[in-house]
């Protein structure tokens, strides 16, 4: 089907333009973050005079972004660890073990996929308050775990169901218990899926704003994304400083995307090819 010449360029040029339109807003923001406020007011588009991290450093120092980043790291790391542990355990049981109610319980997990956080926000808030976990890191970790566990179980189950029964059988013959098989076979063999699901969950937790806004109410417990939303009011008259803050918050995600792009796209398409 590959054509040469004219036809190809008719398609290639709009594709290039669209690629530019996708990347340009980021480049523009980077450029703005390098400018002084005066430079920006005079000309929005001109290239920054010199490369400087002054705005980025100012934004970092003057707005508590450091503390917000710490909160985000703690909550994301805790949630991902818990999600991978519980998701791989349940995925192993659902895919390799036979027990009564397996199909039914798996359907419960899949059904929970269709309950978005917005729908359960109000009662969730009340329940978390009753167990005194509002405005705590543990509370937000639990919230994220509840939110992303069904998806994690779904992907881990479909990954583990491709592991041939012979491998498990062989370990059984060698005297492994069921839990021993989990530790010695499922965890090591599951590494690619755990990496992919782990990165996706890290992105979900890091990027979330709604759940964090609801659970973390005091300023000192804010996560980074909520912190960024507050920057807007703080620096409404100093766009370059605002851009610097936005860039700081985006950097970790950009780095993760550059390193783990394949794992991310594998993870999001894993559900689609199965139907």
């Amino acid at each position: 089907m590959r054509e040469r010449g004219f036809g190809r360029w008719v398609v290639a040029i709009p594709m290039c333009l669209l690629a530019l339109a996708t990347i340009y807003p980021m480049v523009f923001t980077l450029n703005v973050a390098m400018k002084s406020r005066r430079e920006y007011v005079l000309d929005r588009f001109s290239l920054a005079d010199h490369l400087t991290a002054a705005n980025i450093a100012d934004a970092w120092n003057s707005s508590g972004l450091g503390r917000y980043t710490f909160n985000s790291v703690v909550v994301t790391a805790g949630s991902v660890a818990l999600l991978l542990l519980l998701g791989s355990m349940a995925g192993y049981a659902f895919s390799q073990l036979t027990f009564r109610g397996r199909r039914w319980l798996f359907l419960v997990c899949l059904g929970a996929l269709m309950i978005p956080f917005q729908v359960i926000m109000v009662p969730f808030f009340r329940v978390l308050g009753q167990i005194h976990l509002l405005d705590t890191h543990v509370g937000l970790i639990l919230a994220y775990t509840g939110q992303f566990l069904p998806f994690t179980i779904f992907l881990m189950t479909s990954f583990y169901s491709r592991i041939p029964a012979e491998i498990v059988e062989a370990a059984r013959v060698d005297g492994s218990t069921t839990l021993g098989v989990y530790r010695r076979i499922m965890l090591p063999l599951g590494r690619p899926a755990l990496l992919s699901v782990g990165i996706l969950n890290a992105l979900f937790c890091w990027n979330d704003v709604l759940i964090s806004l609801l659970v973390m109410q005091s300023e000192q417990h804010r996560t980074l994304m909520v912190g960024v939303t507050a920057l807007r009011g703080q620096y409404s008259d100093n766009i370059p400083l605002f851009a610097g803050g936005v860039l700081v918050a985006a950097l970790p995600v950009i780095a993760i995307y550059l390193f783990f792009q394949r794992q991310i796209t594998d993870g999001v398409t894993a559900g689609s090819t199965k139907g």
Partner: protein
Amino acid sequence: MAQAATAQRSTTAVRRWHLSEHKIAALVLVTPALLIIVGLRIVPLVLGAQYSLTGDGDRNGLFVGLANYRTLLDDPVFRTAVRNVGLLFLALPVAVAVPGLLATFLFLKVPGHRFYRSVYFFPVVLSPVIIGAIFNILLSFDGPLNQLLGKAGIGPVDWLGNSHIAILSVIGVHIWATFGMALVIFMAGFSTLDQSLLDAARCDGATLPQTVWHVVIPELSRTIQFVFVTTMIGMLTGMFGLIYVMTAGGPGGATYLPEFYIWVTQSQMNSPALASAASMVLFVLMLLVGLAQIRLIKRATKEV
């Protein structure tokens, strides 16, 4: 004889022990996950349905029947939110067709599809907060886009301040930020496409549009339906961050969506029962979209 009997008994004992070990292990493996899912997703859903029938403020906890739902119907802000969902449905074909077309081109014609895929997918991994903040700068009244338009002789457009335009801006930015997701799913579908069908079409002298219409679309119908459902769910539940940062629901409530209405009613207005009623409306919407998904899953499992 007696020896044989004990031997047999011991093997059944071993087997029984083994079986129960297996069962206990399954219980240990599944229980924590199920406790979290039932406790933090399913129980709140049931509680929410119950709250939606109780009152707020003075009538906190009292049964009020469908009063909250009537309040919703009369609330102009909620009506705007529902009307904006209508706009989302109108935007859905665009949000599916554009990445579908791009994926077709990438698959059939344009070299370097890996590069394009990485670029197009990039905004998907960014938080709506980051995207919203960037477009806040780009679309502000005295911002760069209007400056550019001004040079072309087009008067400034109040992208985020005009109540008719703001919702279109937000939806447009959402589509810009997420079309890479649909694109990647389409490309995964293309990779399962039977190459011999395409070769046969070429041998028969089919043009590109003919190939797309008669071969690609029928072969990928399941992928296309999947993209429709996930894109719609994404629009119904993934725009809070954008609205919160770009317009905060304004101007005059013009950019509300149900999810934003629920949050404002719960957190700012302190009317959890009314918010629960709005939640149930959103849930029914999700179910209607989700039912299509269940039918897809069923069909898929039947075919496999």
